């Protein structure tokens, strides 16, 4: 018996993500209407539905699942989340060259963050999904160093992402379309960091954590 995360975990994660994004579709739409173009909930819902429709027995491993997510989101999401999450999953897939132990879970999250930063050119405190992925990576590293299982690493990352998303509320947006609102962006939670927290929460749940 190993705690390592396998294909079954990856499939459960993505199916869970689709369900939770469907459940939170209106919430994400409302968050994005407040400070953006209002399409984030619809886009994420459509994107993950398209992904789940493509999941089948031909996918050999975790990496195959993540690559499918990347290419499908890139071509179906439409808004900024398509290239951002698409690139995140593409880079995350590189870390998943076999079943994931705790170290590889950290590498997966690091890859995702690196992809988002490369694509969106954002840094922390700009009220973007970087503000959820950055604390997620820090928490994942700390959990791994303290000897946590892969599931526990994901749980630490997910909780940190959720806290990171909450912490975007008082921030002034300086990247993306929300930045056009200037001071009016303050007081609203960033939709991208919110969907990030949901995705990581589902990753942890799929690992039983």
């Amino acid at each position, binding site marked *: 018996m190993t705690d390592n995360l396998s294909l079954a975990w990856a499939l459960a994660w993505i199916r869970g993500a689709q369900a939770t994004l469907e459940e939170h579709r209106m919430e994400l739409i409302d968050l994005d209407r407040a400070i953006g*173009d209002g*399409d984030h909930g619809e*886009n994420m819902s459509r994107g993950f539905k398209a992904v789940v429709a493509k999941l089948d027995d031909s996918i050999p491993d975790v990496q195959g699942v993540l690559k499918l997510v990347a290419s499908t989101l*890139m*071509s*179906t*999401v*439409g*808004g*900024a989340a*398509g*290239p*951002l999450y*698409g*690139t995140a999953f593409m880079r995350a897939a590189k870390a998943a060259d076999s079943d994931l132990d705790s170290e590889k879970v950290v590498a997966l999250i690091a890859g995702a963050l690196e992809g988002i930063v490369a*694509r*969106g050119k954002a840094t922390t405190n700009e009220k973007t999904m970087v503000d959820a992925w950055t604390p997620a990576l820090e928490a994942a590293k700390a959990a791994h160093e303290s000897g946590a299982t892969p599931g526990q690493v994901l749980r630490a990352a997910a909780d940190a992402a959720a806290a990171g998303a909450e912490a975007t509320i008082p921030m002034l947006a300086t990247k*993306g*379309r929300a930045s056009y609102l200037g001071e009016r962006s303050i007081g609203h939670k960033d939709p991208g960091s919110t969907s990030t927290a949901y995705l990581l929460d589902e990753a942890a749940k799929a690992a039983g954590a």
Partner: protein
Amino acid sequence: MSVGLVIVSHSAQLADGVVELALQMAHDVQLRAAGGTDDGRIGTSFDKVSAAVTELRDAGLDVAILTDLGSATMTVDAVLEFLDSEELEHVKFSDGPLVEGAVAAAVTAQVGGDLDAVVAAGRARELFE
């Protein structure tokens, strides 16, 4: 090598309109609109951009790509990331205001400018000086 343009917009109508406008002063330039998502919503499509670039490259043209907003630019960046380094000599992003940039880039292509000249024209930097 002659240069063609790919106009990427969140709105299919906007992309088509920019192509229409640019053609007015650049009758002989190959322009491709890549607007909206694959299912006709507001947004940009990796596949549409990629297909437009491939079509112009297959016709033997260098390609300058122009976009309307930041997330369209991210889609273009993602498309460029999938090209090899040799191909990147022939396909470039021109980071400028879409309408003015597209007209300036198209006219530059019409008068025989090379890819770098077209990309520079598309940036339309003189508008902001």
